[in-house]
């Protein structure tokens, strides 16, 4: 789950990391008032769940209250399209109005889980303020990582080493190390999958300040973070994806017209691969998960059916922890609820497959059964 910049910064600040003075606003009038409070000049930052905001015009420097109101008027309510947001963009419903920072240097600092290492890594670069992917492409040796052993935590010699590699003078090494230590605490306390401070700045008066902050909390851990659950902003999410996420269904909206219901991420990817190879364009990636019951399958199919671009549905279920009869009942339920009559190609194998096929055959739906992946892909390609 992604947090907004202002939410992430509030958490950073609570742990003791210095952030700029800022005020969250949702109207142009508030933006003007906030700018006044900050001394008549400020930065307006669109609060959206998409990177590349600056280049897309989501960050504005304003030098007067009037200018603040004008720019806020433009920003608020618009859909901001960035290279990460998808073509439909993400709505700008609030702005963070921040004091101007006296930036002397811009660094990059992040924490994430490294699968290879099997634990968290701290990542730093002296090239902050630009997208880290660009740094990784143009200047990879300027990106440094410090793996963190869970039993030890981040060790002082690591923060010293990283501070040195960030080019920090000795007197800045200690406050920078402090930021690193706090970030690691925030990361573990809150079950984050990512914290990114880009840029971490050194100000003219030699303070270390988190000028921007990105924070993602691992969805699987939200059950133990009631406070963080409150921070979810559904407005930032694709409507169908949000609905799927509510049901704990892995769903990604795509461009085609074949609605896909699969169990298992690997089989779902394989299904997209084979369907694409057969010339059918998938409308979505959907993994209904192993622990689904009929209701959850029905919800998943309901999401597919409510997607206006879907003209046919491909089901590929290999019964394991999800049994075929359960899947079949869910599919029938969803079709009944929505009243949809879209053609359905079903490939089912594994646990309780016969019961599953029987349920579908008896349902009155326009079902074509397929026995192999290739058959299924061809059948869906023809089902129009």
């Amino acid at each position, binding site marked *: 789950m992604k947090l907004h910049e202002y939410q992430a910064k509030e958490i950073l600040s609570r742990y003791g990391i210095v952030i700029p003075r800022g005020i969250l606003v949702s109207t142009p009038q508030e933006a003007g008032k906030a700018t006044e409070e900050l001394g008549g000049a400020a930065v307006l930052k669109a609060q959206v769940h998409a990177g590349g905001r600056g280049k897309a015009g989501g960050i504005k420097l304003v030098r007067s209250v009037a200018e603040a109101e004008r720019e806020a008027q433009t920003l608020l309510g618009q859909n901001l399209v960035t290279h990460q947001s998808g073509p439909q963009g993400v709505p700008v419903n609030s702005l963070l109005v921040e004091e101007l920072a006296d930036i002397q240097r811009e660094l990059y600092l992040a924490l994430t889980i490294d699968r290879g290492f099997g634990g968290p890594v701290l990542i730093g670069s002296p090239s902050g303020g630009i997208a880290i992917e660009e740094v990784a492409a143009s200047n990879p040796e300027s990106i440094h990582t410090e793996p963190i052993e869970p039993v030890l935590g981040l060790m002082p010699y690591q923060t010293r080493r990283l501070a040195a590699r960030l080019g920090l003078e000795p007197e800045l090494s200690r406050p920078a190390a402090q930021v690193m230590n706090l970030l690691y605490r925030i990361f573990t306390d809150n079950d984050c999958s990512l914290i990114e401070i880009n840029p971490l700045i050194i100000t003219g008066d030699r303070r270390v300040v988190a000028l921007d902050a990105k924070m993602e909390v691992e969805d699987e851990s939200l059950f133990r973070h009631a406070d963080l659950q409150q921070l979810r902003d559904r407005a930032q999410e694709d409507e169908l994806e949000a609905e799927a996420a509510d049901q704990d269904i892995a769903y990604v909206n795509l461009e085609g017209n074949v609605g896909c219901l699969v169990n298992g991420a690997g089989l779902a990817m394989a299904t997209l691969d084979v369907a694409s190879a057969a010339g059918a364009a998938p409308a979505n990636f959907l993994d209904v998960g192993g622990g689904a019951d009929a209701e959850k399958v029905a919800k998943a199919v309901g999401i597919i059916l409510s997607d206006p671009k879907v003209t046919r549905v491909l089901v590929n279920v290999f019964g394991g922890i999800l049994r075929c009869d359960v899947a079949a009942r869910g599919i029938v339920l969803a079709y009944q609820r929505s009243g949809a009559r879209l053609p359905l190609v079903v490939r089912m194998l594994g646990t309780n497959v016969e019961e599953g096929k029987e349920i579908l055959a008896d349902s009155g739906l326009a079902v074509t059964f397929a026995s192999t*992946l290739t058959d299924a892909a061809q059948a869906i390609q023809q089902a129009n």
Partner: protein
Amino acid sequence: MGILVDEHSRILVQGITGQEGSFHARACRAYGTQVVAGVTPGKGGQLFDEEVPVFDSVAEAVKETGADVSLIFVPPPFAADAIVESADAGVPLIACITEGIPVQDMVKVGRYLQDMPTRLIGPNCPGLINPGARCKIGIMPGDIHLPGRVGVVSRSGTLTYEAVGQLTDLDIGQSSCVGIGGDPIIGSSFVDVLRLFQEDPETDLVVFIGEIGGTMEQEAAAYIEEEFTKPLCALIVGATAPPGKRMGHAGAIITGESARAESKIQALREAGATIIPTPADIGSTAQKVLTGG
């Protein structure tokens, strides 16, 4: 033969009284697996299906029944505890089916198990099966399997069944099939399982199924090139999948290009693997390699 488990394996099921646990414990037993015990804290003393004793703790179950494999269906918030409990009780092999365990729980469990003799398969995996020994420890549909001499190892659950289904349809039997799990942090890697297949005299060929993301396939490729001597057919899925929306920037720069399907396919091809062109070609590719075609 086959790897890890055989007809002598004695299985205990953690979470046997839950919905999934009871269903799959039954399916394992129906397949022929010796399920000797169940564990559900607070339900010790019951009998599962009038035959399998249920215990409050793994230690008791092991002591009373000599169980040597643990199959875990415990819900995500308690699954890390279940793994550690089995490891501390000296269970040498654990298959954890549970999906959705918090990553930071698994970070700690992973570190702890480094110093233990226990081998963990999963979590978020279908488990493992040895069709020749009628020993199924997991959630895979048993009847799609056929005893034989092809090993299957996969990061994916259902895609493993797909692979097995295609093999069986062509009358190609399996020595053992292992789903290693799709989570960021898992107990056994591709390399760990390939080592076992390398040592297994009854495995002639391995079907290897990887995915986009991470670098485990590249590590496997390095191992295959240096030490693995058997033929291997490899499929990587996800070439047409949308760019992983859930993968943060920082994550992306760690693995970078190597997380992509092409990079993995290239590494495996260079290591001498036969590449399976599409997910529909798993069985046919294996057949070609086996018949020298």
